[in-house]
């Protein structure tokens, strides 16, 4: 190759520099703070905060299953969006056939949402 710069660097040289500046900033702030901040250890300071009284029970509380449902629904719509992007950028190429294709695709996925909705799992009671 005549040009010594690779495609990767062409696209991401600036991003890489910007990212390293970000890391430098964060590191610098943490370092400065580490230099100047006091440290006076006291056993009470390291207890989990529970409005000032002794913490009760274990730290974790089992979260509810509905969070899982929402996360799964999100996976569904995220994948949907990912399939939509390539189509949306080149709609003119696929014409009516592509439109019907996408209608069917979104229609099937909407069925999933409607099902969850009908079953009442979208209701946060």
């Amino acid at each position, binding site marked *: 190759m005549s040009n010594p710069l690779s495609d990767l660097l062409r696209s991401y040289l600036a991003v890489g520099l910007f990212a390293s500046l*970000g890391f430098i900033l964060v590191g610098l702030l943490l370092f400065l*703070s*580490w230099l100047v901040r006091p440290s006076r250890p006291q056993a009470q300071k*390291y207890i989990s*905060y529970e409005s000032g009284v002794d913490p009760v029970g274990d730290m974790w509380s089992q979260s509810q299953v509905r969070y899982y449902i929402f996360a799964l629904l999100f996976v569904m719509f995220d994948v949907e969006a990912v399939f939509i992007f390539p189509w949306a950028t080149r709609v003119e190429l696929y014409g009516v056939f592509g439109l019907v294709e996408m209608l069917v695709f979104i229609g099937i996925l909407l069925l999933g*949402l409607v099902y969850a909705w009908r079953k009442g799992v*979208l209701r946060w009671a």
Partner: protein
Amino acid sequence: MDPLLSGNVDLMTVVVVLLKVLVAFAGLLVAVMGMVWFERKALADMENRFGPNRAGPFGILQTLADGMKLSFKEDLLPEKADRFVFRLAPLLAVIPAFLTFAIVPLAGNFSNGNDGVVEILGHKTFMQVADPQMGILWMLAMSSIAVYGIVLAGWSSGSKYPLLGSVRASAQMVSYEAALGLSIATVLLIGGMLSTNQIVAGQYGLRWNLWMTGIVPFFIFIIAGTAELNRPPFDLVEAEQELVGGFHTEYSSMRFAMFFLAEFMNAVTMSAIIVTLFLGGPSGPTFGITGWISDYVLPFIYFFLKVLLFLYMFAFFRGTLPRFRYDQLMDLGWKFLIPLALGWFLLLATVRVAADQGWNLPLTVVVCLAVLAAGAGLLRAAIRNSEHAEAMAAGSVAKDASEVDV
């Protein structure tokens, strides 16, 4: 791709890249500090008080003072915390917030269909840190990483309130990220380009996506974006009355400042992204002026004013709107925004295809709107009826149960 790096690359090119990176970096930091001050001043104004007015003229150095104060505080690591993840979480919150800014076009002449190319030290380039091929998807990728900052902060604290806050937050953020993605899809439908530079270039001469996409995606994006930022009225993550401080309850000193920084950096970046996607970024009338004024000064002023509008909007939301209940939040996301975003996307897609095929446009729009309205009605009816039918077995039980509960 940035013309700076597409040709032959020499040392000067790298210098130009460094220059751009440094300017954007400094600009972002100043903007974040300004945003904190601006929001506090705006809030104070709305609440008929002074706000910060001691540090520097008009209290403008207040953020700096706050940051310095925080750095002098003791850094506590709770005994039950997961040491590694506890230290990692603030980084995961700040770095994505920071990196999203890399794709925002800050200036450049976009008038009359120009592509925003400016010349620095004899090199043609875009006035944005980078224009990667994945374009606007970069922002989505970063915001999906940012979720980890909050989830892990809450989990690693080894404490109840942070955990609750973070589980809530992550469910909220993923719920609205779907709507966010779908409203971005409508912008792609209009412009057909992922690159932020080309998205802005496609909106020259007031052909803003704001009305090219029919306003609805813009509002969806604003609502979903506000929820994504966990800002009021969607700040259930740190609902002080219920969760002490939310996911960062156990954090102190500079690590706490990191979350603070990330929140405001996200607000600035999100405003900039909204401006880029829907309001034509730095484009605007140049009044026939050419040269550096139309390349840098005017576009940057346009960009700054547009961003300021949204920063004020965020402050306004905070000053005026009460916090959502969690069930309202989820209802808004799943039962309103996502179906609406999908419906609107299909409408725009159909209109687009209709225009390509030479169908009767007004007729198509009317038919589409009718179909959408019918669909929405059917949806509502199906859900009501099914709820009734499903309730056949359990309905009376539910009534009994609810009476018992009360």
